[in-house]
């Protein structure tokens, strides 16, 4: 889909597409040529893009691709429809829940994570002027998520404390079950 | 220094036209009344000797003019004191020394008070003579023009401005700094020490009452009277918040309805502000009671009482003195005359 969006700007060939993708969204993960070409072929097969000519250039001739009208429609729809929101818990969830349920000191768990998150946040904040706008947005994204994770950890420790209290209370009443 | 003055002026203007006008008008009216008080004695009794005779009565009567003026000045000087005190506290927080804060408060109050007092003085100088002339032509109470030497006018005006400034800077004399924790609804409880003022004033008046009013002590008598009345009036004005607080406490003790709870809590949290509204009422009651008392006193003076009986339907005492020589009429015979009763006393020489 990202490639389609890049095609939307104008007819391009695969080499150029890869370059632009890497510049914008690549960051630590660059696209492989093979991936680019296979995606372009798939788009062509689905009718979202079409080959429009050959550009002569240094080295081998490169096939130019352009977006089709159907492609534009697909693209618009994809850009404006959010993913079904799921927010599936990540690894931190598992770790924290296990730590708390096992009876470990909630404050310690909280503190360790806070320290780690704060250090990571500090790195991101220090980097805020390095890189371009997209880098900055990526940094903001991560900071916001770290913030949210920490808030959840605080909440979890409170909740689990409550549950632990209840469990202890029923336990001390004697085993009836 | 100029920054402080500028700040004071700016704050005086910034408090809003309503407050500025209230302070100015209050001071104008107060100044006018006080000047009138000073001018009336000479206008009523131009002859110094005669004036000295009636001095005590004169002073007592003029107090009825002065007391409202003083209360007005006190009340107006403390208008919106809550907001202003908080604002001055904000200045203290950013590091303005106590002395400088006082300067700002003095300028802020002084400017408005001076404007008002001067206006009142000018009004007096301009309006009093013609009014006096009109009164002497008409009911003829005034025997001399109603004026004051300009020096006295200036002095009184300055005194009033100083009083206003002192009142306005009252809050800046507290030592402790309010920390940011103080919110709008912290209770400002009036201290019970306020009662001392009223007690002091009342005591002075009692002393005056008990004093033997021989001419030799006239100066003392007058001084005590004036001071006593003024202190009592001020005592009433500043005691009202205390009573307001008690009333609020009493209302709340009975778990009242929502409306009353709101009103009572509001009274509690700012008893001083709430009472300012009724302080004037308190003083008015004071004056009216004083006036009634005075009239009652007059009505019981022996010659006035007798005159009252003579005009009215009360029994009159007629003393018949007969010169010697002439037929003797048994005094008891008078008994037969209608509406006369003989009480059996006769002194014959």
């Amino acid at each position: 889909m990202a490639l389609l969006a890049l095609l939307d700007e104008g007819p391009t060939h695969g080499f150029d597409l890869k370059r632009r993708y890497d510049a914008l969204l690549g960051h630590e993960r660059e696209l492989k040529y093979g991936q680019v070409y296979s995606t372009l072929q798939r788009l062509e097969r689905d009718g979202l893009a079409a080959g429009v000519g050959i550009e002569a250039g240094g080295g081998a001739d490169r096939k130019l691709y352009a977006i089709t009208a159907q492609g534009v429609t697909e693209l618009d729809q994809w850009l404006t429809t959010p993913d079904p929101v799921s927010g599936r818990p990540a690894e931190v969830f598992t770790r924290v829940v296990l730590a708390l349920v096992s009876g470990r000191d909630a404050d310690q768990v909280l503190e360790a994570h806070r320290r780690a998150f704060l250090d990571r946040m500090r790195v991101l904040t220090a980097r805020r002027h390095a890189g371009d706008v997209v880098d900055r947005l990526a940094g903001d994204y991560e900071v916001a998520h770290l913030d949210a994770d920490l808030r959840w950890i605080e909440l979890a420790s409170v909740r689990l404390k409550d549950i632990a209290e209840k469990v202890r209370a029923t336990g001390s009443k004697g085993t009836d079950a | 220094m100029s920054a402080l003055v500028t700040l004071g002026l700016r704050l005086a203007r910034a408090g809003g036209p309503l407050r500025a006008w209230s302070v100015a008008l209050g001071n104008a009216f107060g100044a006018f009344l006080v000047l009138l008080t000073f001018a009336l004695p000479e206008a009523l009794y131009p002859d110094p000797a005669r004036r000295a005779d009636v001095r005590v009565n004169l002073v007592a009567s003029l107090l009825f003019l002065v007391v409202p003026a003083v209360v007005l000045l006190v009340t107006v000087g403390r208008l919106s004191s809550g907001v202003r005190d908080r604002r001055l506290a904000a200045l203290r927080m950013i590091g303005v020394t106590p002395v400088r804060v006082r300067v700002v408060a003095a300028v802020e109050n002084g400017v408005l008070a001076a404007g008002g007092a001067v206006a009142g003085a000018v009004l007096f100088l301009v309006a009093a003579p013609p009014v006096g002339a009109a009164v002497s032509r008409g009911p003829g109470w005034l025997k001399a023009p109603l004026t004051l030497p300009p020096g006295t006018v200036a002095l009184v005006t300055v005194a009033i401005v100083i009083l206003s400034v002192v009142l306005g800077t009252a809050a800046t004399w507290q030592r402790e700094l309010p920390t940011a924790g103080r919110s709008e609804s912290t209770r400002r409880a009036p201290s019970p020490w306020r009662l001392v003022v009223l007690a002091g004033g009342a005591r002075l008046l009692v002393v005056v009452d008990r004093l033997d009013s021989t001419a030799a002590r006239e100066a003392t008598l007058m001084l005590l009277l004036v001071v006593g009345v003024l202190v009592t009036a001020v005592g009433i004005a500043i005691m009202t918040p205390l009573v307001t607080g008690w009333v609020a406490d009493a209302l709340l003790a009975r778990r009242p309805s929502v409306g009353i709870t709101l009103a009572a809590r509001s009274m509690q949290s700012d008893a001083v502000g709430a009472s300012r509204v009724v302080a004037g009422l308190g003083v008015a009651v004071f004056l009216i009671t004083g006036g009634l008392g005075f009239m009652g006193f007059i009505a019981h003076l022996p010659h006035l009482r007798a005159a009252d009986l003579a005009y009215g339907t009360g029994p009159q005492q007629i003393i018949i003195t007969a010169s010697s020589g002439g037929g003797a009429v048994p005094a008891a015979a008078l008994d037969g005359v209608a509406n006369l009763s003989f009480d059996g006393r006769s002194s014959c020489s």
Partner: protein
Amino acid sequence: MSDLVLEGRRLRHSFGRTRVLDDVDLAVRAGEIVAVMGPSGSGKSTLLHLLAGLLRPDAGEVWLAGERFDTLSERRRSERRLAELGFVFQFGDLVPELTVEENVELPLRLMGVHARAARARASVMLERLGVVEHASKRLGEVSGGQAQRAAVARALVHTPPVILADEPTGALDTTTGELVLEAFVHAAREQGTAVVLVTHELRVASWATRDVLLRDGRIVGGSAAPSSGPSEPLAEVAP
């Protein structure tokens, strides 16, 4: 460590029966930004008030620029507070009757700076905080966030060596909050201002060079004294 601009030693304070701070030490060097964190009621605001000389500690000492601060007379403390401290409080404490720019230039005017120069400097600060278009409005006419930024501008206007801020971004969203934090970083970098800020937000604390965690009146985490090496660079300031 001779370049300590602000120091609190063994500070202890109670309000009535409640012990709010218990044996707290804090040392701040020039150019540092220290974040004081902790749950509500942990004594963060009280610590700030003590450091600012607004309260006298029940026990302990406060040192400002190498001189004993808490034992000074009211007058002397006020003078130093005006010249050497800037602070931002949660409840603004700006003068409500004055306009925004009059409030911001106030410390300068009180220090004897000429009206025009003071107004110019105030405008610069307001510009940096993004509220210059509200400069002539009275406080009642601006939003809470704008007022808070004006308060920050006022704290910075006379470039004091120390800034104390209590939740300076509390009323602000992320972008406007960043204007405030950038201003602090600028001051720390360019003028060596030491900033102590109280916050409960991790994101805000990530702008600090050091953090301290308070709980129930005691320091339970972070570092109370600057590290002996040079303070970590906060990376580039916005060009």
